[in-house]
């Protein structure tokens, strides 16, 4: 039995080999690949409307991306452990509202009030998911509805204490220093640093990945999984609350649907960034780039001056294409 003639010609084999190697390189350095994609998008904008990409524009992009990035940080933490948090938008809105209605108490106090929403809802989510083992999708859906409804009732009872956005929050959400550095970046950067290092270099970070990968294996290794998950959802709630404070600082008006538009992007940024929705794989660096990509995308659509419905359709379609491309790449 001799060797059969190789049906694939040498040239094609070489081409396939280098394509394969390129794909492998992409697979292993997905964050870098994403960054390249971001640059492409920015380049695309410059080509469509020359003169758009200025330092001011870049700083604006970062300004708008920061709240999404902070929201995506919480969502990343939760997705790594195999869950999801659909209450982040409601928590962000409620936190902003609570802060605004207590603004008369002074800076620290009103921020604490805002954060307390994140802590409280995060605790409820954590107890449901970690202790009672409810599925995160349903649990956070319910708490999201609950939070939103409670907020509506609260806003009607609180007619005496009108919400007012304090000036330091306004600067946080829309201000810049040193000729262009957004103040919310000064908040986002340390958070990002802590999250990235925390995920890679701490025991808790390792446990998040481990729990997302195989919960039972963690039990057998002596990990008390409920502790990890409870902390996870509380952290997500707190981060959502922080994001809410930044968002309201940007819009300067605390209304009921403040953060609604951030829910889909918070999930999308994490998925595009390479974290698997089933858990056990991914990281925050990708989510950061994902948040930037989505913000640039939004800016691109605004530039095209298309009517709102068209923008919505295009935004969704592009997210779908990015997510599909990413899944193909890593499968």
């Amino acid at each position, binding site marked *: *039995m001799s060797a059969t003639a190789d049906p694939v010609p040498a040239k094609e084999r070489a081409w396939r080999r280098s394509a394969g190697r390129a794909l492998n390189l992409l697979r292993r350095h997905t964050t870098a690949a994403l960054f390249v994609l971001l640059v492409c998008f920015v380049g695309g904008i410059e080509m469509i409307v020359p003169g758009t990409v200025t330092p001011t524009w870049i700083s604006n992009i970062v300004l708008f991306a920061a709240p999404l990035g902070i929201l995506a940080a919480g969502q990343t933490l939760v997705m790594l452990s195999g869950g999801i948090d659909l209450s982040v938008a409601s928590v962000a809105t409620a936190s902003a509202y609570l802060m605004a209605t207590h603004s008369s108490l002074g800076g620290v106090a009103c921020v604490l009030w805002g954060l307390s929403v994140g802590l409280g809802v995060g605790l409820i989510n954590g107890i449901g998911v970690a202790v009672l083992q409810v599925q995160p999708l349903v649990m956070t859906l319910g708490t999201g509805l609950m939070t939103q409804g409670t907020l509506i009732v609260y806003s009607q009872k609180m007619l005496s204490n009108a919400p007012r956005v304090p000036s330091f929050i306004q600067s946080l959400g829309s201000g810049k220093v040193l000729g262009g550095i957004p103040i919310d970046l000064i908040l986002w950067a340390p958070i990002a640093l802590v999250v990235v290092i925390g995920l890679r270099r*701490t*025991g808790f970070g390792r446990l998040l990945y481990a729990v997302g*990968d195989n919960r039972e294996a963690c039990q057998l290794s002596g990990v008390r999984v409920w502790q990890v998950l409870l902390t996870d959802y509380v952290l997500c709630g707190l981060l959502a609350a922080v994001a809410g404070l930044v968002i309201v600082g940007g819009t300067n008006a605390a209304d009921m649907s403040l953060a609604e538009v951030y829910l889909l992007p918070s999930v999308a940024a994490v998925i595009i960034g390479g974290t698997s929705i089933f858990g056990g794989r991914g990281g925050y660096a990708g989510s950061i780039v994902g948040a930037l990509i989505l913000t640039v995308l939004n800016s691109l659509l605004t530039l095209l001056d298309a009517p709102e419905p068209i923008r919505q359709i295009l935004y969704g379609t592009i997210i779908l294409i990015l997510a599909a491309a990413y899944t193909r790449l890593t499968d």
Partner: protein
Amino acid sequence: MFGGTNGASGSRGSRVPFSHLAAEMTSTEILLAASNVAKRFNSVVALKAAALEVRAGEVHALMGANGAGKSTLVKILTGVFPADGGEIAIRGRERRFRSPAQARQAGVVSVYQDPALVPDLTVAQNLRLARVNAKAVRAWLADLGIPELDLGAFVRDLPYPVLRLIDLARALASDPTILLIDEITAALPADLSERIFGIVRRWRERGRSVIFISHRMAEVSALCDRATVLRDGLTVGVTDTARGSEERIVELMLGYEVAHTAAAGDARIAAEAADRAAPALEVRGLRCGRLLNDVSFAVHAGEVLGIAALEGQGQEELFDCIAGVRERDGGEIIVRGRPQDFRHPADAIGAGLVLVPANRQQAMLPQRSIRENVALPAYRGLRHWGLIDMSAERERVQEAIRRLHIDTRAESALQRLSGGNQQKVMIARWLASEFKTLLCFDPTRGIDIGTKRQIYALLRELAAAGAAVLLFSSELPEIPLVCDRAIVLFAGRVVHEMAAADADEVTLLRASHGLVPQREASA
């Protein structure tokens, strides 16, 4: 690419031409002829040039170490995925299966280790789903000893051995030309295994064929006519199973002369050196669930205690209780003289008891690296949630990997490693953390022989270094090789205890059935 080039040089018996097969060629029809079958998954080559030839009316064993390509070949033959190269001919006609349904139509049906039964449907619905004749299945179930099965019961409510029988009955009812049976005796009691063998023999008399996959050499010699051995994705030999072939098969699988482990000698030396003070682990009157009734024994530091039992005699509950996975219903667990109350595996680990489960899937982190898998228990306590000392961790992990000779080439994710290496990582996990007593539940189930022997050598090493080892093994011949003493569980109780020298297969098997020798050696 691997189209048709010659196989790896230097390995004996690569690409054996069919004309040189050991068995005599008769004029029997050849039902299945596969040659040059190749398959790769991205960068991993699973099969280079596998060949298999099955005649009509034969029971043909397919053997090989984990990672040799057995399961890949099986999946290709049954249509789960297509081959990258090679030819497969059924009854002389070349076929290319694109789905299990196509393979089934061509008469190739398989019975895998996990029965393909949908849990939330009833048995009858499952049969309808697969378009199988329910009456024929009933008839086969009667032959297999469960004529009264309620076909309207949900699959999720039925015990696992029953599901395997339903799966087998379903396969038989579709009247296959070639029946592929994969490790079916792993979860079944001995008498049921015999019944299945009887059915297999009857099937052979009808002129059909069976491809039989098993790690149990005794079964292969008893049941099969010929055996094809795979190694490293190649067929390295085909032998008759009749003529004292076990050693030859093992040689083919491992590729070198296999020497018997000198473990028996070590066992006696270690036993004398064992610390006779307080036992490392003592169990008194332990009860748990329906199956574990009243178990008492002791394990000392420096010794390996083996447990032998048939399926379902309470051994799973026993290990679960000692490891803290399950709460006991009664009795005591005493560690180094102090009674313990375990609520969670963390409690057991804190007392120095660590578990290596039979099913790797339970303990593995498939997407994480070897390093993360090995280091996992180190972060179980709240005070270890902070920053990791990376260099210290690297040292610990490397040391454990070195001791177990783990192949670290596929670093990225544990799921890319072979089964044997994965199990070694599970053991390495405990080498890197501290422990006093190692609980091994059938750690070498489904692992190739080479890795098995490495693991047993390690267990002896650990015992010699002062650990206590409790080992449950479903393969009786291994017990006297590794253990110092052995106990037998039957009906949830310890019915016999003996030294390694007396723990021969016959005694163990009889005791496993409850047949204890007259002169009782009570614990």
